[in-house]
């Protein structure tokens, strides 16, 4: 029994890692300019004479692919934390309006800085997004005091999202022409235009958050059973909840600051991973969800870039196509269980 389980976990992790490797390579090779693996390897080892290929790989595709890997994982992780927090499989940064809140604050910060012809640094954007995420999270938490139905909470979250998006649209509409194109793309979610500087900052922030979340896996395991059980086992539930809120907001903020709001990955990836592992142990699910989110986003970004090339789709368009049906399936399954 124990061995069978361990084997399943090893295979599942192997599949995830392998999938990520394959899609990582595909993402680097495939694009409006197709580059063979041989040329990619040559460029990576610095032996290419072709400057164009070198630039495409080093300055465009590689930072973008690394960013997709990091942010995709972060998305799944923040979704996983929120699902744990609310004991609800369809909670996520997007449906609870947290992404939109972060988006609003980032848009405000960008427009404000641009109007003074200052360029917003990565850190400033993350800070702005974090403020927005915390604002919305705070609002959602206030509502949980009055609303005990999870479905209604989600509806409220979606409404908060709409309000924040409306404000963002308003800001974007009145921003000066030059800024709009940029803001408009970003506000719909996209991994384009990543630089190595961006990647460095997000790698640090998300690595730290990931380690902190991983260190919380034991109390999260207890919290999964329900609050009274967690208390009975000696977990300081209040402190744990604060940590979950801060970390999930920080992760969402980091994603929004760099790639805008991206829908459904936070719900779909952890759900699929739970099914793959057939377990709810945070010790497994935290790293696995991260990898799952990365894989999901690498796959979706590949489609977004190439499906209608040279036109690039919004990443949310693609993630919604694959993610939304999963949410529907979760809801249908829940109902079934309720009836039986």
């Amino acid at each position, binding site marked *: *029994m124990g061995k069978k389980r361990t084997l399943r976990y090893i295979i599942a992790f192997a599949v995830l890692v392998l999938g990520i490797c394959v899609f990582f390579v595909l993402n680097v090779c495939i694009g409006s300019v197709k580059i063979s693996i041989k040329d990619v390897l040559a460029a990576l080892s610095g032996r290419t004479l072709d400057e164009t290929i070198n630039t495409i790989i080093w300055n465009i595709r590689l930072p973008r692919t690394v960013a997709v890997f990091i942010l995709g994982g972060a998305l799944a992780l923040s979704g996983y934390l929120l699902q744990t927090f609310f*004991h609800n499989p369809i909670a996520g940064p997007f449906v609870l309006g947290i992404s939109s809140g972060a988006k609003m604050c980032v848009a405000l910060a960008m427009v404000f800085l641009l109007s003074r012809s200052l360029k917003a640094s990565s850190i400033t954007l993350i800070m702005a997004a974090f403020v927005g995420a915390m604002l919305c999270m705070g609002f959602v938490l206030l509502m949980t005091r009055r609303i005990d139905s999870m479905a209604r909470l989600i509806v409220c979250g979606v409404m908060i999202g709409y309000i924040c998006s409306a404000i963002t649209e308003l800001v974007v509409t009145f921003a000066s022409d030059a800024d709009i194109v940029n803001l408009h793309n970003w506000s719909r979610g996209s991994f384009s235009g990543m630089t190595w500087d961006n990647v460095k900052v997000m790698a640090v922030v998300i690595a730290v958050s990931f380690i902190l979340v991983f*260190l919380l*896996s*034991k109390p999260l*395991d*207890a919290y*999964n*059973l*329900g609050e*009274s*059980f967690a*208390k*009975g*086992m*000696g*977990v*300081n539930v209040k402190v744990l909840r604060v940590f979950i809120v801060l970390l999930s907001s920080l992760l969402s903020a980091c994603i929004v600051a760099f790639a805008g709001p991206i829908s459904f990955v936070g719900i779909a990836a952890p759900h699929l991973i*739970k099914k793959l592992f*057939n*377990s*709810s142990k945070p*010790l497994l699910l935290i790293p696995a969800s991260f990898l799952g989110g990365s894989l999901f986003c690498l796959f979706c970004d590949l489609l977004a870039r190439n499906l209608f090339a040279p036109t690039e789709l919004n990443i949310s368009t693609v993630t919604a196509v694959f993610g939304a049906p999963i949410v529907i399936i979760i809801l249908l399954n829940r109902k079934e*269980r309720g009836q039986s």
Partner: protein
Amino acid sequence: MTDIIKTEKLTIGYNGKPLIKDINIAIKKGEIITIIGPNGAGKSTLLKNLARQLDPIEGSVYLEDFKVSEMSGSELSKKVAILFTDRIKGEMMNCYDVVATGRYPYTGYFGLLSAKDKEIVENTMKLVKVEELREKDFKKISDGQRQRIMLARALCQEPEIVLLDEPTSFLDIRHKLEFLSILEKMKEDKKLTVIMSVHELDIAQKISDRILCLKGDTVDKFGTPEEVFTEEYIRNLFDVAEDINKYAEKKNIKLF
């Protein structure tokens, strides 16, 4: 013998509104205590205060002379296990996983089970006779089975005191008896102290060393079965009106 748990001037309730005032009780190691009283008398609330799931409005709970409110979470969880009416929310857990969560206070930083932990889980499952449920999905077993798994989980915690809120309500007669026999065995073998609320007065009468009766906003009586179980007292405790009492006599329904 010293008291394992006692309360001093304990006032409990919700949102600052007292439900039961001035509770002063002392319970010895290895006693089985049942809490009885009408619906809404505060049986669960009292248990939650003893388990530190709720904070008292006034006064304190002491565990072997230590103030419960000042103990660390892990210290407390090694001494007190609970089996309340909350349902486990965990997903994708088989019964073994659920029982094993009882080892939580003893496992290392990442919560992995040691060989010793596994042995204790095995032994407890044997004791409670749930070995055959090991692989079953916890969400797909019957209420009776679930309750026994939850008991195994609580006992896995190797507590000195176990607090149970209406543990036998959903059990059929055979499982009720099995459940109670395990508690008595633990009392005999390990000097386990048991504090539980029950609705079935016959059970309270037969299993308890002492019975705590809650009524109105006070502890009405705290005494042995002989002291508590008189027709008149029970009728009073539950406010059984004269006409209802006549009906019970006519149908030959005993109160306990």
